[in-house]
């Protein structure tokens, strides 16, 4: 349990620290957009690229923001509870959060499978099959803009981010458990 917490937190910390600088990538794209618009022909790709960067920024940065404790809670009662009581409540309610993340992840995986040309109802086995070579790529989904980027990369990023978020929340679950047992984390 300690090992899991250490590894997951370390991975998400690194990922988050890298994504943190995404703000400058976003800024650069938007500045290029205004420059190209003012002096040349407006770029086709800037707005959509900025949207992709933003998605990566907040989805992949999500687990780190959980570590930072940035996610607000309503502390009408919660604020006055003892650490142990907080941990007890969290232990239960974080399971609900984990459930939400599982549903999100399932949707993301099936949408990613779709973007790779799979239209069936077993997205996980399809993606597994892709890795082992049992399945083939189908029609690749493209964005319906003039730039027409393929959509699987950003969807894959979302899958990865939601998976990391899931791992992080399981780590939080373990931490609550340890807190209740009175162990150091």
């Amino acid at each position, binding site marked *: 349990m300690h090992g899991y917490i250490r590894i997951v937190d370390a991975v998400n910390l690194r990922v988050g620290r890298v*994504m943190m600088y995404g703000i400058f990538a976003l800024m650069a794209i938007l500045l290029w957009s205004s420059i190209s618009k003012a002096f040349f022909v407006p770029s086709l790709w800037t707005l959509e690229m900025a949207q992709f960067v933003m998605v990566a920024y907040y989805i992949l940065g999500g687990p780190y923001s959980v570590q930072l404790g940035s*996610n607000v*809670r309503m502390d009408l009662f919660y604020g006055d509870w003892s650490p142990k009581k907080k941990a007890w409540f969290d232990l239960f309610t974080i399971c609900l959060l984990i459930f939400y993340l599982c549903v999100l992840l399932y*949707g993301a995986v099936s949408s990613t499978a779709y973007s790779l040309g799979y239209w069936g109802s077993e997205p996980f086995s399809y993606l597994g099959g892709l890795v082992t070579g049992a399945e083939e790529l189908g029609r690749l989904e493209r964005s319906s803009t003039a730039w027409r980027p393929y959509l699987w990369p950003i969807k894959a990023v979302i899958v990865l981010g939601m998976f990391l978020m899931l791992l992080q929340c399981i780590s939080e679950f373990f931490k609550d458990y340890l807190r209740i047992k009175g162990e150091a984390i």
Partner: protein
Amino acid sequence: MSYELIAILMFSSMMLMLLTGQRVFGAIGFIAVVAALLLWGDRGGFDIGFSAAMKLMKWYPLLTLPMFIFMGYVLSESKIADDLYRMFHVWMGGLRGGLAIGTIGLMVLISAMNGLSVAGMAIGSTIALPELLKRGYDKRMVTGVIQAGSSLGILVPPSVVLVLYAMIARQPVGQLWLAGVLPGLMMAGLFIVYIVVRCWINPVLGPVLPAEERNIPRAEKLRLLRAGLLPIVIFATMMVPFVNGWTSLVESSAIGALAAFVAAVLKGRMTREVFENSVRNTLGITCMFMWIILAALAFGAVFDGLGAVKAIESVFTERLNLSPWMILILMQLSFILMGTFLDDTAMLVIVAPLYVPLVGALGFDLIWYGILYTITTQIAYMTPPFGYNLFLMRAMAPPEISIRDIYASITPFVMIMVLALVLVMIFPGIATWLPDYVYNKQ
């Protein structure tokens, strides 16, 4: 089970989940996907959560969110507002309550440089608060001044809250921002009147600065005035190209963020630590907003799918048979009530989609309503038990200020905000005159 009942059940179980203190996005998201699965099973129950992510990706004005948050952190972390504070200190110190009045002025200028109230709170409580307390100002009054003053950040453009409102109400951000200018200044004016009157009645609340502190050379005094140029320059580099249509909204926000960053570098304040804090906090706050909106969009889609909007509309107009103004006033009251214990993002994304179409259908101007909405949010920021400014004040205030002081401090200011709300309701021109003037001359 009728759809109305399901809608009520969803809403109340979400409130219950929120009360357990779990992260807001988790509470909302869980109810959303469970409701979707129960209602639609495998025929769509699994997709609602994720398709919100794709919807969110396409909401381009949200690109401004990290930019304005970054701007705010750069301003507060780099302390480039210190000079501004000194300017007000020296120029206003001679009046009764002058420093408090100066703090309001400071908050207005900071509001024009960032889109949230966080920067104002940070600057107010780290720079202004200790000085005010040292000079013998009444602690309850000054805590209120800082909380109320910093909340102007979301009313005076640029404003993140108005960007989010614009997304939901489908109204132009530019006009909404302009609509916020006069009400923002009016509210600042009302705060000042309040301070002047109270200090005039009871000078102990805001003593005049000792003469030796004010006795500095005129040249030095004039030099300090230059500090006021910085916010004007940052505001102008962002707003002028935008209002003239040279750059789009999201591009302007990037220019504003860059301008704040460059200003901090030029003033030599962009240390490694400031840089680290600004970048990290921007990620944290942006993620918080985005994950809440992600969950709330799914919640909204399910709610919408139930026809809850139509149900509420018919309750108001047909069953209760209320006049448009009565409905509007009821809505504002319920908003204020919800604002006391709901997070403003959750409030906006869940409740506004129910109310805004109704406001439009009743024939009210949605630009004007955006301002009413924002003032209500300002009130929500300050009212216990849940409010950002309240939290920040609790976290940043020195030990001699108790929670009781903080709660007591906001009462008069909340009353002033309600007064401002009423004034804007009675005289819509306060909000609509400026956008009408600017956009109709084209």
